[in-house]
């Protein structure tokens, strides 16, 4: 039953991810990326990580991707500037890349199929709820949580320094 939900979701996510890579316009890529993130949110729900699924939609698909869109619009990137094609002179490099990617994929699959986790543990009902995750966040992981605030502050300062208009 879960397989029936997982496979379509996974397939859609992968296809959308490929569209991100192969789309000619940045806006198109961004839209596909949002779609992929929504797909992943579905996968998270399947894994009973409800809180993370919500965050995925709010933070990722919402805030982060809006920022992307905003910047693309701001810079007014046209298609012609962003068209990608296989570079004429570096076909060798590109094909080498392809081979490497296929190789790495093959190896990853080869390597990961042999693990001890064949079936999931039985988890309590409240697994992945806001309450449980929040409790963990504020007890065992309170230090990372606080440190993350420094990270965000630093990022904020940095972004302002770089992006504010030239007049001081």
């Amino acid at each position: 039953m879960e397989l029936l939900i997982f496979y379509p979701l996974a397939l859609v996510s992968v296809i959308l991810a490929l569209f991100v890579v192969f789309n000619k316009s940045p806006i198109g890529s961004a839209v596909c990326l949002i779609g992929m993130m929504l797909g992943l949110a579905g996968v998270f729900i399947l894994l009973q990580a409800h809180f993370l699924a919500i965050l995925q939609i709010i933070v990722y698909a919402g805030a982060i991707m809006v920022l992307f869109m905003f910047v693309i619009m701001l810079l007014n990137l046209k298609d012609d500037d962003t068209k990608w094609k296989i570079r004429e002179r570096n076909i060798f490099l590109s094909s080498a890349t392809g081979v490497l990617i296929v190789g790495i994929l093959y190896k990853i699959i080869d390597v990961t199929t042999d693990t001890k986790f064949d079936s999931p543990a039985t988890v309590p009902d409240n697994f992945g709820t806001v309450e449980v995750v929040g409790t963990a966040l504020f007890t065992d992981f309170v230090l990372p949580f606080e440190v993350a605030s420094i990270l965000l502050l630093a990022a904020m300062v940095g972004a302002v320094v770089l992006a504010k208009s030239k007049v001081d």
Partner: protein
Amino acid sequence: MVPLTHYLIFSAVLFSIGVLGVLIRRNAIVVFMCVEIMLNAVNVSLIAFDRYLNQHDGQIFSFMVMCVAAAEVSVGLAIVIALFRNKATVNLDEINLMKW
């Protein structure tokens, strides 16, 4: 039930697509989106591991990953804007003032 392996393969495939995108795209912003795909792929693994280990560490980790991703996006796009102001391009192949 879905075996863990499937989630891991799914995550590996997404990760590889992200890597591929970074390698072949020339638009800095799209390259950056591909990095986001990679981070998302990692999140899938983290949460899948969590589910199968019956723990919450991985979810906290992926929470932090989202937080980092948000911070990175703000800084990264600021850098792109700063560059665009001076050079009016986001094409990575044209950004090679410094080499050799």
